[in-house]
């Protein structure tokens, strides 16, 4: 399966599809850090970055999963010894790409953007929030990939619409039924993130896993 992950990553890198989310990431970085973040506000800044980059993570995951032509997915499935492994390799490769993007998002403000270096604890919290963001983004990207939504227009609409809906619903009292993006941004701004860290982590991982499970289930008849 690892060989298949490498194959998918190689195809993705050579297809230049990485450029789109990479440009999205850098535009967001420029917007976030065009004015220096004052000391003590690093975690709030990380929380915003992790929440807003979900759409970039989703875009990258969708792009990676759409790189292989449909017939190649069939070949890859038989090469790897079953379609489950092909589906698993796709998700792992998407996670790997998003880990790279998240690493850039966490590291860049340390070099240019933060007035002072954040504490080790805030750095860890910030990195953790980006992990939550990339897991939600990867699931959203997988659910809008070509085997699930063959029409590019419907797929883009579902990706951006799904992300906006996720943000809006997380603002309402029904926010418990989605990835709690707005609650983590607000809590980080108010300095109360630690109090809700456990429930938001559990909720985000639950919804990401649920999204990935739906994707895996749908792929059984959508090779």
């Amino acid at each position, binding site marked *: 399966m690892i*060989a*298949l992950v*490498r*194959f998918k990553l*190689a*195809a993705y890198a*050579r*297809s230049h599809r990485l450029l789109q989310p990479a440009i999205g990431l850098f535009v967001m970085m420029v917007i976030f850090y065009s004015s220096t973040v004052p000391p003590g506000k690093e975690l709030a800044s990380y929380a915003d970055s992790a929440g807003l980059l979900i759409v970039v993570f989703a875009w990258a995951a969708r792009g990676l999963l759409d790189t*292989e*032509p*449909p*017939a*190649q997915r*069939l*070949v*890859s*499935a*038989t*090469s*790897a*010894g*079953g*379609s489950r492994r092909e589906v698993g390799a796709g998700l792992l490769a998407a996670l790997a790409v998003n880990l790279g993007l998240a690493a850039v998002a966490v590291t860049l403000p340390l070099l240019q953007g933060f007035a002072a270096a954040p504490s080790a604890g805030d750095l860890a919290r910030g990195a953790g929030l980006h992990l939550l963001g990339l897991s939600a983004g990867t699931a959203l990207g997988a659910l809008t990939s070509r085997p699930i939504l063959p029409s590019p227009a419907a797929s883009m609409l579902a990706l951006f619409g799904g992300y906006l809906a996720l943000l809006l619903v997380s603002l309402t009292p029904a926010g418990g039924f989605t990835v709690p993006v707005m609650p983590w941004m607000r809590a980080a701004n108010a300095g109360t993130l630690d109090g809700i860290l456990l429930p938001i982590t559990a909720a985000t991982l639950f919804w990401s896993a649920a999204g990935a499970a739906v994707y895996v289930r749908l792929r*059984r*008849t*959508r*090779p």
Partner: protein
Amino acid sequence: MQLSGVSFRYSRRGPWVLRNVDLDLHAGSVVEVTGRNGAGKSTLLRLLAGIVRPSRGSVAGRPPVVGYAPEVFPVDQPFTVAAYLAHMARARRVSPAAGTALAERLGAARLLGLPLGDLSKGSAQKVGLIQALLAPPGLLILDEPFAGLDEQTRAELPEIIEEVASGGGAVVVSDHQNQLRGFPGARRWLVADAAVAALDGERPPRAGAEAGRAAYPVIGRNGDRAPKPDAEDDGERERHAVIEVIVDADEADEVEQKLRADGYLTRRTA
């Protein structure tokens, strides 16, 4: 390998592509799958290969190494032939040298340095064939392998099939053009009416009841309807139409073969 009561549809409310299919596939056997376009041949091959799972029923005893060559090899990939085959070899945990050796055998060594996107249809089919053979397959599945192949590979393919079969591998070939008709010992499965019928006397157990009349199958049914008991067939037969096709005497055999491969009933008049 055994398919028991296998039914498949692509979505919960979609039509059944295959329904209640029982098949046995023995090691070393060669099977030619025929049927009209859209009858479900490719779906049957994907079920056999383990690419899709049955909606109902089960597939048991699939060999661990499956080689699959798709009907149209996907050239839209950013690799050279050599790099692509090396990736596929690693996915199969075999030496990348396996691809080079097969390429030489099929006269495709000169293709190795070319980008996949520059390949002609026949060359692309060769690459598809090579990747399917990288590890000696216990089950080799070829979807319309003869389309676009050059004469050399067209002649070589039955030899390769024979080698895989004599090595204990099962080979299933969907073959719209009926190119394997002269292949010694090859069985034929006809896919029609969401069912699969063996045409050579080696009938699949449960489908056997239908197989007796399957040599001249009822045509024109919707794919979403299950094979019905004989009682309904009279009604279906009334909907048949007779088309007279006039061909040169030299071509008569070939045309008749093609029509029969597509599952039509033919009658010859002088």
